């Protein structure tokens, strides 16, 4: 199987045309302030007031390389970059005839073709971009590490169109591997067929349909049995928020108390989306659900959600983390750590799963909704362990207003200005609380030599 490579991503909607990327490129590549030396070009579109991009895509089937008669252009198999060799180039410009992106171009003042080389893995243009329009996507390692591993769920799972849970569980089990026993309490994940139907199983590992109330307890017992016979098996729950935060909470809490060596993954779609979109304990304030309707007396849910991942940090878990499928590299790193931790203690992962069907947004928008949850601080990505405390893994320096997130989703369309302001206050309060936890984490309180720094308690 081929390799996957990191790349530069362009969000046209965020580009403000400042041109800093071009200047940074010209300086990095030619120590020049002359933008003719830039390998990246931002193109203002006067009519639509938007910006377009011309940049080498480092194609997997590079026509520039195919068109090169001198062998000066080659696709580097290690890093995916199209390398240009000045020594053998004859300046025939046939490469430019092969490129549909204006990614390899000629400037008379330079005298030869130029193209992006990704600055050896740390692109200057991305560093210079202050609007967030350019990003260096570094998730290629996920594909390279896991693409050839077996998908341990069967084909034909019947998740709703646009559901990110199927994406999530396939990625998860592919990484956790075949020596795994899975508990799937009632919810969307067994509902889509993972536990099987008509006498056939939906997974290639042992999977069972636990009760809403007992997944953690059953897994704890199974793990003890495997430990007793000396087999290294990961026991894992793929539960919804009902099976974790509501009906499932008693057994989850008890397993956390005992720090049972299990991996518990809560796939949080903020309610009982599988059974008719009823409200749960983690349904946010203001949400329309079938049990918190919008009408004369009620305008969606009146109470706040409970912040389950934070609650889990107050138990005795060995590891707690939040995750989003819009940031899969972050998730993979946390999952890897959780699998290790779960050999000896409880690892709890809380993954957010926006639901196109139950929340009412277009099925094409799921990943964008996931991303906006993070960019507005509606959810925060962090990890926690008792030794090091809480650490943000994807801090958002300048969060977007929560309104931008709410406006994407049907279940919030009725919200009044007061309700939106209320949600913004809740978001601000919760993120401030997490910042307090992070600031007061044991790792931060320790000095460089491990001694405790003095903390000014008056502050």
């Amino acid at each position, binding site marked *: 199987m081929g390799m996957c490579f990191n790349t530069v991503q362009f969000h046209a909607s965020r580009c403000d045309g400042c041109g800093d990327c071009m200047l940074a490129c010209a300086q990095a590549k030619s120590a020049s302030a002359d933008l003719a030396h830039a390998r990246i070009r931002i193109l203002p579109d006067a009519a639509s007031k938007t910006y377009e991009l011309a940049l080498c895509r480092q194609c997997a089937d590079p*026509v520039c390389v195919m068109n090169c*008669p*001198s062998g000066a252009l080659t696709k580097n198999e290690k890093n995916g970059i199209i390398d240009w060799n000045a020594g*053998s180039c004859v300046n025939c410009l046939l490469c430019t005839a092969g*490129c*549909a992106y204006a990614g390899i171009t*000629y400037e008379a003042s330079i005298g030869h073709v130029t193209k992006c080389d990704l600055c050896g893995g740390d692109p200057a243009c991305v560093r210079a971009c202050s609007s967030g329009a350019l990003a260096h996507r570094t998730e290629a390692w996920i594909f390279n590490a896991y693409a050839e591993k077996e998908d341990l769920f069967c084909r034909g799972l019947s998740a709703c169109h646009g559901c990110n849970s199927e994406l999530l569980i396939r990625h998860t089990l592919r990484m956790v591997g075949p020596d795994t026993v899975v508990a799937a309490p009632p919810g969307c994940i067994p509902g889509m067929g993972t536990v099987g139907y008509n006498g056939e199983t939906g997974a290639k590992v042992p999977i069972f349909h636990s009760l809403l109330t007992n997944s953690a307890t059953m897994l704890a017992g199974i793990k003890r049995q495997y430990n007793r016979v000396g087999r290294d098996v990961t026991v894992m729950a793929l539960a919804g928020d009902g099976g974790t935060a509501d009906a499932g909470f008693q057994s989850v809490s008890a397993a956390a108390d005992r720090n049972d060596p299990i991996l518990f993954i809560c796939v949080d779609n903020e309610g009982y989306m599988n059974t008719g979109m009823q409200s749960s304990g983690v349904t946010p304030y203001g949400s329309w659900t079938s049990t918190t309707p919008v009408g004369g007396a009620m305008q969606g849910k009146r109470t706040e959600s409970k912040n389950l991942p934070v609650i889990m940090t107050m138990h005795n878990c060995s590891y707690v983390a939040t995750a989003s499928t819009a940031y899969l590299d972050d998730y993979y790193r946390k999952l890897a750590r959780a699998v290790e931790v779960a050999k000896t203690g409880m690892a709890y992962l809380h993954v957010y799963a926006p639901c196109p069907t139950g929340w009412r947004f277009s099925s094409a928008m799921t990943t964008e909704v996931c991303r906006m949850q993070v960019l507005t601080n509606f959810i925060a990505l962090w990890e926690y362990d008792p030794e090091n405390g809480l650490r943000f893994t994807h801090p958002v320096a300048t969060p977007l207003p929560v309104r931008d997130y709410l406006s994407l989703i049907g279940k919030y369309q009725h919200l009044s200005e007061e309700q939106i302001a209320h949600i913004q206050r809740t978001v601000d309060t919760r993120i401030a609380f997490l910042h307090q936890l992070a600031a007061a984490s044991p790792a931060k309180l320790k000095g460089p030599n491990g001694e405790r720094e003095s903390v000014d308690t008056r502050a």
Partner: protein
Amino acid sequence: MQHSNYLIVGSSHAAFEATSAIRMFDSEGTLTLLTRDAHLPYSPTILPYVVSGRSQPDDVVLRDDGYFRNNHVALVRGATVASLDPAQSCVYLASGETWRYERLLIATGASPALPPIAGLDDVAFHVLRSMADAVRLRQAIGRAKTAIVLGAGLIGMHAAENMAKAGVAVTVVELKPHALSGYFEPGASAIIEGTFARNGVRMLMGRTISEIEPHGEGCRARMDDGAQIASDLLLVCAGVKPNTTFLAGSGIDIEDGILVDDRMRTNVANVWAAGDVAQARGLWGGKVVNGILPNAVEQGRIAGFDMAGDAAVAPFAGAVPLNTYSFFGQHAISVGRGARSDGHDGLEVAETADATRGTYRRIVLDEGRLFGISTINDFVDAGVMWQLIRRRVDLSALKAQFVADPRQIGRQLMSRTWR
């Protein structure tokens, strides 16, 4: 008898892209390239640079032994194909060897065409199509003081420039009224010809040699107007003809080249053709031989995918002429049919030239869509222009802006298309 699942005759761009495409689908099936050349594979396009000394013969190898080993591809050098018998699925080599195939690709390219000039057979002359030609020509230039280049096409003009730079007194003789008339209209050609003239090259356009005879080591040509030119060296580059003589009696349909459909299939089962030897759909209708490198790349790829059984192969959209040409440090680019608009009425032409900056730009539009663009010392992204033509992108709303700055507007349009 030898056997190969995939047999490819030829070893240049079309052949290699077909090889890559086949290997994407079928990593095991035996794949053999037959080439009459003794040298490791190279691009004919690089030859003028070998003549000038810019490139060394050993440095321009497109695929080395390691490539053939790693991809389980056999390269048979010095193998000249003499005939093809599709009924037996066999090609026969001049050496007497027989190769049986399941699927055959003919990517034999083209050879120099020799004009019917009285006496040409009796004089020593050069052509430029193989590495051996290039090495021989380079040596001859070192010894020559005077030279005649017959034909002001790409190869001839490149060679004339090399000779002039090497201090040889060169005369270029071209039957057509202008140099590079396949790609550039008279206005642009005049600029190119002027540059050559300023660099000491004698440009005899619209002229021809009526008779030629040996003269010492070299030759003496009598021109159509009776004038006589003697030279130490004669280079004949009066066009090329597809290499199809070995197909006589094979039943394969040949017109200007081997006629192929949009998947590069010939009329005969299990035989494909691609590159300079093939005559395929032209973007503006009919079937054309489009003997340029990017065309060989694209056709080779399509042929390879189809040979390997890719049901989803994207059919050939149609050939578009394209050329990027550098001369005496200047650059000329031509995409589309700006220079050869015969049979098309109502074209809109926007031409600008700046004599002091030495720049030239001509844009030809057909009902708001790009039909051809040619520039000198005014860089446009040829690949982007090619896409605008191929995709018939409607430029009506942006016409004024495009004519003013085709590079910027072209990049913008492409970026939007890909997003």
